[in-house]
């Protein structure tokens, strides 16, 4: 696209009140080969009715951060060394195990990546969905089963009443992921965390599942945290995007502005590495190098060894996450040379 002034972008949607705030989260793993720092000061805010995409390569700490919010990190080896996870202002990290358990499934629910392994192979899907009503709502077996059928209808599983007693292996991949989604939505949670919900699926099915997630989110008004490595997946559904690198936020923005003009070289690299319908005929350029070793993080900006625009300062001094552009845009980027990156339409 020529460097003409960008077309006016729609105003970012008015967000509801802050629902989930992650603040300065640090997670490390004690392993025999040293301390692996998976999350290093991650922060984001998810509002009611909003879809926030947490974007990053594998090893960027995005799934670990999600498990920390859920209280599902295996401790040891994992340890949350600093930070807060606030749901309506209440810090979940200070809850006892029993208190945190009451939040899981009821107020924050999670959709996992591979539904085949994430569903119990020896229990019927009806049992696995209905279990939430039996445990958290005290419903009887028959009522819980009826609610399971309703939910399976709601996630558009055909012939739900007939399939409720089937086992996970009897469903197709897409239908299994719908079962996972039904389970997550069962108790009307305020926050749904979807960790790579479509990665294990065919491309056509991916689109269906993303559309379903978006529709259900509109219906219920939950906050949706979408964790993915795939810019293409989030393009149509995310309101805001938080880009992670080496356990830190490198850029955050509303989705249209990020796609139009990335403010961080890493985001730009990600955008250039995926095919885009709005820019046909463009050569795909992969991000050079591989994700950093989290046990031995580079000095300064963790991205500098892979960054084409890196200078001496980048290796010495870690860039802070600072606002970019007009204040109303609510964008920020962690790069010493953000101004140069944005000035060239995302090209350093």
């Amino acid at each position, binding site marked *: 696209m020529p460097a003409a002034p960008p077309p006016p972008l729609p105003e970012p949607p008015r967000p509801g009140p802050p629902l989930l705030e992650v603040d300065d989260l640090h997670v490390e793993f004690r392993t025999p080969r040293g301390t692996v720092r998976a999350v290093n000061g991650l922060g984001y805010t998810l509002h009611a009715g909003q879809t926030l995409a947490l974007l990053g390569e594998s090893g960027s700490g995005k799934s670990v951060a999600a498990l920390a919010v*859920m209280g*599902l990190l295996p401790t040891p080896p994992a340890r949350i060394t600093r930070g807060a996870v606030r749901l309506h202002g209440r810090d979940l990290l200070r809850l006892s195990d029993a208190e945190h*358990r*009451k*939040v*899981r*499934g*009821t107020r924050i*629910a*999670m959709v*996992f990546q*591979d539904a085949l*392994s*994430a*569903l*119990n*192979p*020896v*229990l019927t899907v009806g049992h696995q969905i209905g*279990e*939430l009503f039996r*445990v*958290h709502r005290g419903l009887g077996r028959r009522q819980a089963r009826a609610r399971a059928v309703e939910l399976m209808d709601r996630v558009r599983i055909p012939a739900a009443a007939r399939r409720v007693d089937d*086992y996970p*292996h009897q469903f197709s991949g897409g239908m299994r992921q719908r079962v*996972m989604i039904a*389970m997550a939505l069962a108790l009307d949670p305020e926050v749904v965390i979807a960790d790579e919900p479509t990665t294990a699926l065919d491309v056509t099915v991916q689109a269906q599942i993303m559309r379903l997630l978006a529709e259900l989110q509109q219906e219920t008004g939950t906050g949706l945290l979408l964790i993915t490595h795939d810019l293409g997946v989030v393009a149509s559904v995310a309101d805001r995007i938080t880009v992670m690198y080496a356990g830190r936020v490198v850029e955050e923005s509303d989705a249209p502005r990020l796609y139009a003009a990335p403010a961080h070289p890493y985001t730009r690299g990600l955008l250039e590495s995926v095919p885009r319908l709005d820019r046909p005929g463009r050569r795909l350029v992969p991000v050079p190098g591989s994700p950093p070793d989290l046990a031995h993080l580079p000095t300064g900006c963790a991205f500098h060894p892979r960054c084409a625009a890196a200078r001496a300062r980048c290796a010495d001094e870690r860039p802070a996450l600072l606002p970019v552009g007009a204040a109303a845009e609510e964008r920020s980027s962690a790069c010493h040379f953000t101004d140069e990156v944005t000035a060239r339409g995302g090209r350093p």
Partner: protein
Amino acid sequence: MGRFVVRRLLHAIPVLLATTFLIYALVFVLPGDPIQGLAGDRPVPPSVLAELHRRYHLDDPLVVQYAKYLGGLFTGDFGTTFRGQPVGDVIAQRWQVTVRLGLTAWFFEVVLGIALGVWAGLRKGRWADHLILGATTVVIAVPVYIVGYLAQLVLGVRLGWFPVSGGEAGWPAAYVLPGLVLASFGLAYVARLTRASLVENLRADYVRTADAKGLSRLRVVIGHTLRNSLIPVVTFLGVELGSLMAGAIVTEYIFNLPGIGQQVFQSIQLREGPTVVGITTALVLVFVLANLAVDLLYGLLDPRIRHD
């Protein structure tokens, strides 16, 4: 389901034929004359010898003897011992002791084995886990006759908690200690198998899902993990049901229980073909039926391999 059962039972026929023939042939080729053996060093008059040989078909070739035996088997006749007692009666009489002993041992393996395994699995890396792993290694490594005599000496003779020998005290008193001894190896194995399988399954994705649903630890372990973990254990326990019946010879000898194992031992010494083969056939049948039961139970535990 019904077809599956029928098919499995049909599979059992060649297994039964092969095992019975093998045992029959083994007894047949044993050196020495069985009738002369009965009389010891005393001479047996040639006419008596010939008459007995005729009555027990001892001069026929192996295949003919075996065919005659099989014919009898199909009419429910297990043959007669050299003392003139029907083999069927001998089996029936001895069988109860062995079944009681075997089931007692099996019960210990199921209950104690699985309980210890679950305990160790949930306490992985802690002292309970180390203790159970260590103890089961010792039990598996030590031969059963040492475990047997040791248990008899300590728990039977010294402490007097259990009868030392014989089946007169009946079930359960006379069977608890022998049952434990007979079960020791399998029990240790079941505990280790359960532990390993539970530890592995606790790492599975579906367990994380169950945790993400806010279920209690108890519900996650019992409701979600245990059933998956028990699949390999059930396989072992099924085969074990048969081996416990057949493998009770040493235990029956130590505790002087008049079971089928003792009978087989005596019959082999006396070269009583029909008795040995009869008992073996019965044991093979138990084996086949136990395996069939396991395969059916398998389908209940794991819907992915249900036979419909």
